């Protein structure tokens, strides 16, 4: 059955995680009565975006058997710099963001070169980065908070005005729905033209319909969140839109490009990757640069969400990001994991945080629980890989 429907162990695992997510939502709703409300879901979507954007990039880094512990600190440096340029230097937000991106890329060039070309373990390089760049975030503005007030810039963070509104949200949702349906049709057509075995039509159609319905349900929920003094629905928050674009871009890179293929090959067998002529060092460096771009994007969203750049921006975010990736099914041993999984992982972490918060669980217990959930996820991961034959030990 699984064979005939061409469901891989990976698809099955993603489905299980999506099931866990739904179960969590239902349980929290049963206990709190206000978990599955447009307001709460809107806030969760918004709050998850920053971690989600970075987690999507970190997922690929871990797939390639590397790690980046410095993402939180780099996010801090970039965020403070952008806010500093806007507040203290009077820059327009656009060049300030470009400067932030440039700094993020330069840092990645430095750390990535050490890892890729000198072979220094990325754990060590980025552990150093974790401390150094946190310090640098302090130095840029002398530890002073840099408030930002540009209304356009503040839209990136969501909030009151940072969403698409109902009409644009529906338009976007429907457009993507049509694109997904078209994608399924054209994939089937191409597979048929090349003599590949097709999945049963009912299954492909059902799958496409399911995803389209999830998408439209999401749009409907976001539109159903109406602020009292505004009178119209909020629609898709801009940070979530940015997160969506990032995930689509990274998933495309991972699945459809040579670079993405090489990332997985390096993670699966670095020696083989070298022997077949893959430019392993260059691919590794490019991967760090790609993550840096994601960190810069996340940084813009975060500064905008907080209306300020502070030197504590992104503190201990690396832990949430790595947790999201690992809970999302990325194996720390490399070669396995998906960008989409990182989305589910980030949502699971945020569901847990929000749900426990609504249940009035204190911060101490929340940390205890989330830490243990991470371990449960990894235990599940180990057992699942053993059962699906991916691991023999």
């Amino acid at each position, binding site marked *: 059955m699984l064979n005939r429907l061409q469901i891989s162990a990976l698809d099955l695992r993603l489905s299980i995680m999506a099931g866990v997510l739904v179960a969590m939502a239902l349980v929290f709703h049963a206990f709190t009565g206000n978990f599955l409300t447009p307001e709460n879901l809107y806030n969760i979507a918004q709050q998850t975006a920053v971690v989600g954007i970075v987690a999507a990039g970190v997922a690929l880094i871990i797939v390639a058997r590397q790690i980046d512990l410095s993402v939180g600190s780099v996010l801090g440096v970039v965020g403070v710099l952008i806010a500093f340029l806007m507040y203290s230097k009077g820059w327009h937000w656009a060049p300030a963001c470009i400067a932030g991106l440039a700094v993020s890329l330069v840092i990645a060039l430095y750390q990535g070169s050490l890892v890729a070309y000198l072979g220094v373990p990325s754990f060590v390089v980025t552990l150093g980065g974790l401390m150094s760049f946190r310090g640098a975030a302090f130095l840029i503005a002398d530890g002073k908070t840099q408030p930002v007030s540009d209304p356009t810039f503040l839209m990136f963070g969501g909030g009151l005005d940072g969403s698409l509104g109902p009409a644009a949200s529906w338009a976007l949702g429907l457009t993507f729905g049509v694109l997904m349906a078209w994608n399924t049709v054209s994939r089937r057509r191409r597979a048929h033209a*090349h003599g590949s075995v097709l999945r049963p039509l009912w299954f492909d159609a059902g799958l496409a319909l399911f995803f389209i319905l999830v998408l439209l349900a999401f749009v409907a929920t976001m539109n159903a969140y109406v602020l009292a003094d505004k009178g119209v629905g909020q629609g898709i928050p801009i940070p979530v839109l940015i997160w969506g674009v990032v995930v689509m871009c990274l998933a495309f890179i991972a699945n459809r490009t*040579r670079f993405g293929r090489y990332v997985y090959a390096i*993670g699966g067998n670095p020696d083989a990757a070298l022997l*077949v002529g893959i430019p392993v060092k260059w691919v590794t460096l490019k991967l760090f640069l790609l993550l840096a771009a994601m960190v810069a994007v996340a940084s813009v969203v975060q500064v905008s969400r907080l209306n300020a750049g502070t030197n504590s921006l992104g503190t201990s975010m690396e832990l949430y990001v790595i947790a999201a990736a690992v809970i999302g099914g990325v194996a720390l041993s490399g070669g396995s994991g998906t960008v989409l999984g990182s989305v589910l992982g980030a949502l699971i972490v945020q569901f847990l945080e929000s749900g426990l918060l609504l249940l009035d669980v204190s911060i101490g217990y929340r940390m205890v629980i989330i830490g243990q959930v991470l371990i449960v996820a990894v235990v599940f991961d180990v057992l699942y890989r053993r059962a699906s034959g991916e691991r023999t030990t």
Partner: protein
Amino acid sequence: MSSPDASSPLIEMRNIYKAFGGLHAVENVSLAVYPGEVVALLGHNGAGKSTLMKMLAGAYPIDSGEVRVGGKAAAIENPADSQRLGIETIYQTLALADNLDSVANLFLGRELTTRWGTLDEYAMEKAARDVIHRLNPNFTNIRVPVRSLSGGQRQVVAISRALYFNASALIMDEPCAALGPEETRMVHDLVRKLKAGGVGIFLISHDMPDVFGLSDRLSVMKNGRTVGTYRTADVTEDEVLGMIIAGKKVTRVGECFAPPGGAA
């Protein structure tokens, strides 16, 4: 590659040296293969045969010496250079990424792309199906990660690379070491087929039946140096073992640096 003249060497390695730190892995080794010829390379573990072949494959840089391919001096600095010269290598480890499927592994490093520059999965799958079918018609689950395949199937994936990319020269490092009798026969048939098609093959092997059944010439290495290079038909198994173990050159017959009927 244009079809080479059978009387001139396809690949010629001259006075090759390679050292790792203070260890001389390969010292002043010269070896050639002609079109349609199988040259067996023998020696103990650490004799330098795999190192020599890895230099030809571009996996290690050559310290000094010259490689000529099709009569022209060739600079091989990385695996891609070697592949571009029409040299394919089947490593003992097979060089497969276990997490990827057979199609991805066949094309690894040389993926087919669409006109948008994205991976052309369907074209690759079709091509892979064809070439793998030629090797083993029963092997159809080419879309599962290669970690779940049998040793013989994994070998087929590694060999299919050489077949698909139309190698003019092939390096096989212990191709039958992990295979059962049926799969060994498959590899032997393939070697003969490629040989008949004019491919020059370097065969690293410990297995005497492999060597005597397949090779035209053989070359024995010990401690990084060549002991001797002979026509396979001229020497006996005992003499070959004497060269491998004791480094004792055979004097009963002359050495042979070109295949029978070749330039020599």
